[in-house]
């Protein structure tokens, strides 16, 4: 049945979207910085997975373990050394700064990896499973499950660990956190590092399903934006909700009015939400 297929497609895609957006949402929620490099981090993570699989023969799941600390370090240093200087500057400055950084990273990737589209094809190919006329490709399913696991891990980290609670505290009320003895500067760097690590891991998962090229970074960024606004900033459940909503709107819209209009629809929805309900579906203060 078409409706069931569209629904299942949307659910699977929605979780992937959530995974793309979660790091972006964290950085935006905690540091109040819109990180335009996010898309390029994702692509870099995808290249990492591709490279690791191609030349070392290592399964992409191990690439996750490699990507996380690498990207965390990269993000941490970037924030500590560069972004921290403009952290209290107005919106325009941080946006333009991250835009400039993205130009550099993207250009470097095009230069070293070339703009060709690479594809990580698992061998043997994983195929698809079919239940009552609804078909789900196995690689997407695995990526979805991994994405959910990642977000779950983040949730636990934020609730159970000391660092996580400190991050939530900074998000809730920066000044009060300082009074409580939280080293805000270091928390900012950790949060940014976390965001980068999540982006890198999301990239590894994306490599399994989508083609890899520096040119796709703006696509991922665009999705992340919409998911954050729809679902609410700084919240794991918000990212999930936003991701699912976006995927549903796109899927149903595609079926009813054609795929050409799907992207337009998502951005119109973005604007509507911004005007009518800027905190998103599940947005609230405090990161949970």
């Amino acid at each position, binding site marked *: 049945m078409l409706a069931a297929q569209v629904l299942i497609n949307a659910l699977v895609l929605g979780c992937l979207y959530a995974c793309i957006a979660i790091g972006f949402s964290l950085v*935006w929620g905690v540091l109040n910085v819109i990180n335009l490099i996010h898309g390029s981090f994702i692509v870099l993570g995808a290249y990492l997975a591709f490279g690791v699989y191609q030349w070392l023969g290592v399964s992409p799941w191990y690439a996750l373990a490699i990507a996380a600390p690498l990207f965390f370090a990269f993000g941490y240093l970037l924030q500590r050394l*560069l972004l921290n200087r403009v952290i209290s500057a107005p919106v325009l400055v941080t*946006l333009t700064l991250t*835009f*400039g950084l993205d130009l*550099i990273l*993207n250009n470097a990737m095009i230069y070293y990896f070339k703009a060709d589209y690479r594809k990580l094809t698992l061998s043997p190919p994983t195929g698809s499973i079919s239940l009552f006329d609804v078909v789900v490709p196995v690689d997407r399913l695995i990526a979805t499950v991994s994405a959910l696991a990642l977000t779950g891990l983040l949730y636990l980290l934020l609730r159970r660990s000391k660092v996580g609670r400190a991050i939530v505290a900074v998000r809730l009320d920066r000044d009060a956190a300082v009074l409580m003895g939280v080293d805000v500067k270091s928390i900012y760097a950790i949060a940014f590092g976390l965001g980068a690590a999540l982006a890198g891991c999301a990239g590894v998962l994306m490599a399994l399903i989508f083609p890899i090229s520096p040119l796709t970074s703006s696509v991922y960024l665009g999705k992340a934006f919409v998911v954050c606004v729809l679902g609410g900033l700084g919240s794991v459940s918000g990212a999930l909700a936003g991701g699912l909503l976006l995927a549903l709107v796109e899927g149903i819209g595609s079926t009813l009015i054609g795929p050409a*209009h799907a992207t*337009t629809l998502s951005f119109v929805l*973005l604007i509507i939400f911004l005007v009518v309900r800027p905190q998103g579906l599940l947005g609230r203060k405090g990161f949970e």
Partner: protein
Amino acid sequence: MTRVNLALLVLIACVASLPLFGGAYALRIGTIACMYAILALSWNVVGGFAGYPSFATAAFFGFGAYATAILLDKGVPLSVAVIGSLVICFLLAATLGIVLLRLRGHYFAIASLSLVEVFRELVNNATDLTGGGMGLNIPLASGSGILADATFFFYAMWGLLLTTAVVVMIVSGSKLGFGLNCIRQNETASNMVGLNSTLYKSVAFGLSACFVGAAGGIYAAWVHYIDPSDVFDILYSVKPIVMALMGGLGSPLGVVCGAFLYLGLEEVVWRNYIQIHSGVLGLLIIMLLLFLPHGLISLRAGMFWRKAKHV
């Protein structure tokens, strides 16, 4: 007429002498320079004066380009088509502004960014009217020589630049400009004092869009073929912002100087660093933001100049 504004007029007058210095290619660069100066000046009204970081410049540039192109296709003469685009963009922006300008900071930036995407996809899908992904053709004006053509479009763009600069200068000295200044500093307080901030902001947004639309129209007539991904390119939004930041936010003279300087740098970089030109651009942006956050104009803050307006 303050010293700064006089300097700006002198600068623009000097640019008019470009045809004496170079041939058709130099005129091409000059036309592009004037175009970006218009974009930067216009953006400054909503971004520098009112303090709302708008990324919608590309949306109106593309819209104006298509509006003019469609009108030209229907046989309307160029000047009428361009003025038509100007008016349409002003009204459209003012109307959209009423809704969008309720947002602040990041949210407004994102909303204006999405405007670019929405407009582009709308144009992309209206295939019958705009040619969709296949682009739109504007017939070549028959018979005119290359140099004559280049000079004509250079002066058209230059004339628009002059108009924009004059309007911006009038605005900055008028009640509207004063009101925008207040809004930028503290919108809530301005509202309390009785300032109709919605009206002022919408007018500012409209002004920031109308000349951009007209510039887009002249651009379309100049290149004869446009397609959605060319004219709705996000860089038409970002570059004017970088130029404004480079030259000094809030100051018309600074913004125009920033525009010219940026373009000069871009030409040099394009010729010499083909493979890494966008990387070099990125580096430039970063250094600018870290070391010269108030733009070039702050370099001369001292005895002769007012301090750069703060963001």
